[in-house]
């Protein structure tokens, strides 16, 4: 098993006919992901990715015609919140929003509407997820993965690749790697993803990759201390050298009023039983130290 995506995933790519959508849609299909549909308003009836995937005008058409159950959104920032709501209304249960640069206040009602509908949103401004050997949704490079039983959750993109590559190089595979996104308002938090990993019988260890800003790492740590006490847990926090009051690229990565510092996150994670790495390359060894034998 795995979380969020697997062989039962039937993916509709919003914006499949666009530049990003077609590039990554093709990569997902090549990886073996069940890309069953594309959605681009006005291009309904066409076929994308060399004729392999039908395109629909609306998500509800895609769901009705192809049984899509998962969305991956490459729509530009202005239209992405609406696209999330369209997926929710069409009954899609799991929605990945890759789009970056969505105004934060746009996400406030959207996140509430997703929650109200009982759907699950990953992102926005996230790289997606990969369940190695089963499916990949989003933009994470396929090459870095290896099948296995470590669950990886991260706020970041390339930093995640770095960490996952280090694990793969050390012979440690992943059950699912999830990038939850670096925006201030995101659909699923570290905690939400940890809950899924806890319920997944195949996930035997956890890697959490956080960064400065907010308190989501602290919240997840407190929960993990109680619910993942016996699970090997390691973490890395980026931004130890970040100055206060400056947004470090990610809209959410900012220390304000002395809160959201790397130090407070490292302390909370260590108190919760995580081993915290000084560099992503140390993660494999720390997993071993924590008792992971997978």
């Amino acid at each position, binding site marked *: 098993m795995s979380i969020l995506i697997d062989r039962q995933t039937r993916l509709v790519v919003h914006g499949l006919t666009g530049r990003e959508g077609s590039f990554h849609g093709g990569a997902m299909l090549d990886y073996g992901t069940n890309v069953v549909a594309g959605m681009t308003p006005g291009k309904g009836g066409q076929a994308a990715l060399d004729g392999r995937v039908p395109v629909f005008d609306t998500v509800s058409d895609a769901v009705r015609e192809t049984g899509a159950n998962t969305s991956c959104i490459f729509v530009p920032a202005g239209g992405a919140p609406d696209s999330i709501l369209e997926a929710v209304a069409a009954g899609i249960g799991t929605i990945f929003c890759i789009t970056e640069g969505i105004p934060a206040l746009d996400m406030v009602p959207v*996140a509430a509407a997703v929650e109200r509908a009982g759907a699950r949103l990953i992102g926005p401004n996230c790289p997606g997820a990969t369940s190695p050997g089963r499916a990949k949704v989003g933009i994470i490079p396929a090459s870095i993965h290896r099948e296995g039983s470590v669950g990886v959750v991260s706020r970041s993109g390339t930093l995640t690749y770095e960490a996952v590559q280090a694990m793969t190089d050390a012979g440690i595979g992943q059950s699912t790697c999830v990038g939850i996104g670096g925006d201030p308002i995101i659909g699923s938090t570290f905690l939400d993803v940890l809950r899924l990993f806890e319920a997944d019988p195949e996930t035997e260890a956890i890697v959490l990759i956080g960064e400065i800003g907010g308190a989501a790492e602290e919240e997840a740590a407190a929960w993990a201390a109680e619910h993942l006490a016996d699970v090997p847990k390691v973490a890395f926090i980026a931004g130890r*050298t970040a100055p206060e009051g400056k947004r470090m690229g990610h809209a959410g990565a900012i220390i304000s009023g002395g809160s959201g510092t790397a130090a407070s996150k490292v302390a909370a994670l260590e108190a919760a039983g995580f081993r915290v790495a000084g560099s*992503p390359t140390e993660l494999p060894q720390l997993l071993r130290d924590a008792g992971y034998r997978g």
Partner: protein
Amino acid sequence: MKIQEADAKRLLLAEGLPVPAWEVARSPAEARAAASRLLHETGQVVIKAQVLVGGRGKAGGVKLASSDDEAEHVADAILGMQIKGITVRKVLVAAAADIVKEYYLAAVLDRGARRILLMGSAEGGVEIEQVAAEKPEAIVRIHADPLLGLQDWQAREMAFRLGLGRHLKAAVAIGKGLVRTMLVNDADLVEINPLAVVRGGGAPGAPGGEEQLVCLDAKITLDDSALFRHPTHEAMRDPDEEAPADAEARRHDISFIHLDGTIGCMVNGAGLAMTTMDLVKRAGGEPANFLDIGGGAKADRVAAAMRLILAEPRVEAILVNIFGGITRGDEVAMGLIEARRQQSRDVPMVVRIVGTNAEEAASLLEQAHFETATTLDEAARKAVAAAASQSAGGAA
């Protein structure tokens, strides 16, 4: 994007909030003229340094004056002053209020709750972080419903809990106005500190002597991601406080933050860029900047990033760390080669490119005699060593 107090007050006024009259002056003479127009209100003006950093008061950037002569002298002292490294180029002149009591009120985006938070305290005038640390129970927090918005009853609740029942109507209008200002402008933060009960004078058209509730200071931070739909907001970017490098970075869609170290960093991805800085520090160096060239960075953006880094004379080595995903390693390599060809001064560079098209990148870099590294830790160590030998060389 942070905006100046005067701009923040303008946005509040546009939403109908009570903000006492003010003027902005760029010279002692302008300040004198402004004071002469405002002194009649309460017999005193306050002159405040306009800089985008906190702690202006403590730094001596806020002073009172009781005559136009004094206003001119005070403005002369404040203009040109350095506050946390920023030179004061403008002052705000306003009628000094006869303050009865100060409050704090702000609309902020609460990321954890994923909704707008109206936050208030009867302990106004001091920094809210201090109140939060010393007397957390003195902070009232009311979340706006994510679908319904802030309701009138919530604004009333805030007013009653702050003890502003005597100013109920005004307090409700201000509470709702803060959230509206936030929504209309796509702000992350709209903060009034102090919100004050003042005696007469404070606001234009107010009957003398009567107590009223007014916004004495205002701080607004705008969501950078939403600037695209507020074309007029760009004009509020203060050119006096933006380094040329920051403007250049914005033009090229590069996330760039200047720091005080000697090792320039060029990275793709915000998390990895922070990590690269952290590892430079861990290897004994000091990063000169945070720099994220973003996804799919093309040659011209690499060249621009290089110029940004080299514009800082302190930089003694450059660490390039690229994990190819959307970004193709060979494109970055070609960008680096081109950038080095154009660059004005020769600084040692350590390049690490992994992921998509890393092999093509490696052979390009080898042909061009770049120093490369395999792991991030190794890259950081090499960059720190290069900077050290560079300093040593410079000192020799």
